[in-house]
């Protein structure tokens, strides 16, 4: 087991711990912060997997954007004080489903033989850039369309609240 693997496991444990805390805590604010910590740990794992650009993007968009968005949402709605864990009448069914789904995910992850990329990995940024403008250019443009759609949709959602 190389040092890289050790690091990966450490980051994984941190990520899992943050995620667990985020789900179990009663304070919404701490939940969001835990999410931020989780995303940072995942960014670390991306970097370890030679996806350095993705790692930095993760920080930029997720931690610097999505977490901020969530904090705004929280702070604009006066909650954040102690929230009781979501009470539901169907707790038995819920936990059963959770176990089943979780079990499936674990089984699928552990059981899959993922291919190992041989040799040196190409430097991620030029590789990504060339792919986006070359073979994957369709995907690139579609991304543009999706983002435009996202703006329209987001505004539609937000503005309807004004009524």
């Amino acid at each position, binding site marked *: 087991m190389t040092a890289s693997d050790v690091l990966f496991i450490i980051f994984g444990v941190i990520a899992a711990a943050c995620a667990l805390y985020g789900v179990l805590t009663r304070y919404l604010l*701490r939940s969001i912060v835990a999410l931020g910590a989780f995303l940072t740990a995942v960014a670390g794992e991306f970097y370890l997997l030679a996806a350095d650009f993705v790692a930095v993007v993760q920080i930029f968009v997720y931690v610097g954007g999505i*977490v901020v968005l969530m904090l705004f949402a929280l702070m604009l709605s006066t909650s954040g004080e102690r929230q009781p864990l979501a009470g539901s009448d169907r707790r038995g069914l819920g936990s059963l489903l959770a176990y089943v789904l979780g079990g499936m995910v674990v089984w699928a992850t552990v059981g899959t033989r993922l291919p190992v990329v041989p040799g040196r990995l190409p430097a991620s940024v030029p590789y990504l850039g060339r792919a986006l403008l070359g073979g994957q250019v369709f995907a690139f443009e579609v991304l543009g369309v999706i983002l435009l759609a996202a703006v329209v949709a987001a505004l539609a959602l937000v503005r309807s609240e004004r009524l």
Partner: protein
Amino acid sequence: MSTVLTLGEGFGLGVVAFTLVGAITTVFVLLERRVSARIQMRVGPTRTGPHGLLQTIADIVKLLVKEDVRPEYADPVAFRLGPMLTAVPAVLSFVVIPFGAPLVMRALNVGIVYFLAVPGMTVVGLLLAGWASYDNYSFLGGLRSSAQFISYEIPRTLAVVTVVMLAGSLNTVDLLDAQKPVPYIVLLPVSFVIYMATTLAEVNRIPFDIPEAESELVAGYHTEYSGFRWSLFFLAEYGALYAAAAFATLLFLGGGNGPVLPAVVWFVGKSLVVVFVFMWVRWTLPRFRADQLMRLAWKVFLPASLVNLVLAAFVMMAVGS
């Protein structure tokens, strides 16, 4: 084994960086007071030590031993995390800055994006600090500060993209070589202007300092903080200021390039000039209203940076071939 060495190297440089930022804050606070004084035709602190040089040291000692007042209702976790989350990213951004060609802590291959991404975490800190203080004014300050930060982040990023287009790399060290004949301020003047202006907004300096405006919100998101925690915010601010100035030097002024003198000297010199310009602007211009500020970001700077990007790309292609 080499892993442990790298870890130690990282740790050591972390200590160095933190101390450096501390020193920078010390010097800049005094510098700011002297510069502002001159511009306002007065003298500024001159009593403590020769020429007032020990003034900030005295301030620091005072801050360290000051009582750590915490308002009653403040959420303890958020209250403590806030200042840390603003200060830590500011220092972290120093990792990729080359102080003269070989003198960089770590030349990350994605250094430029790293530099822009890490301060994004500062926003989370701002929000936590404002919220945790359980006070309308702090809260409002934190919100405004965050909104301002994210609004100006895009034009700033786009301006940097133009530089990356010309340089062909996201590695900060490559930027030094790329500007060997001509610094980018000549090739990309609009990008430079956009960068400088948006950076002022990112660091909350006048004319964009509504979130801290003394006459408006008392002290904004850090109203309720005292002593060392409060100083962490200032560390963050001045650290980020210098980091941004250093980045500007790197992106547009050719970093450590220059004849005769060693690269470090050139770099520090140029970056200090940029800092001086920032301070000069601060004490000369009045501040923007919150709505003017936001309008500027989205209706002026963002379209401008988009147009600039396309034009720069076009020209680059046309000339390059």
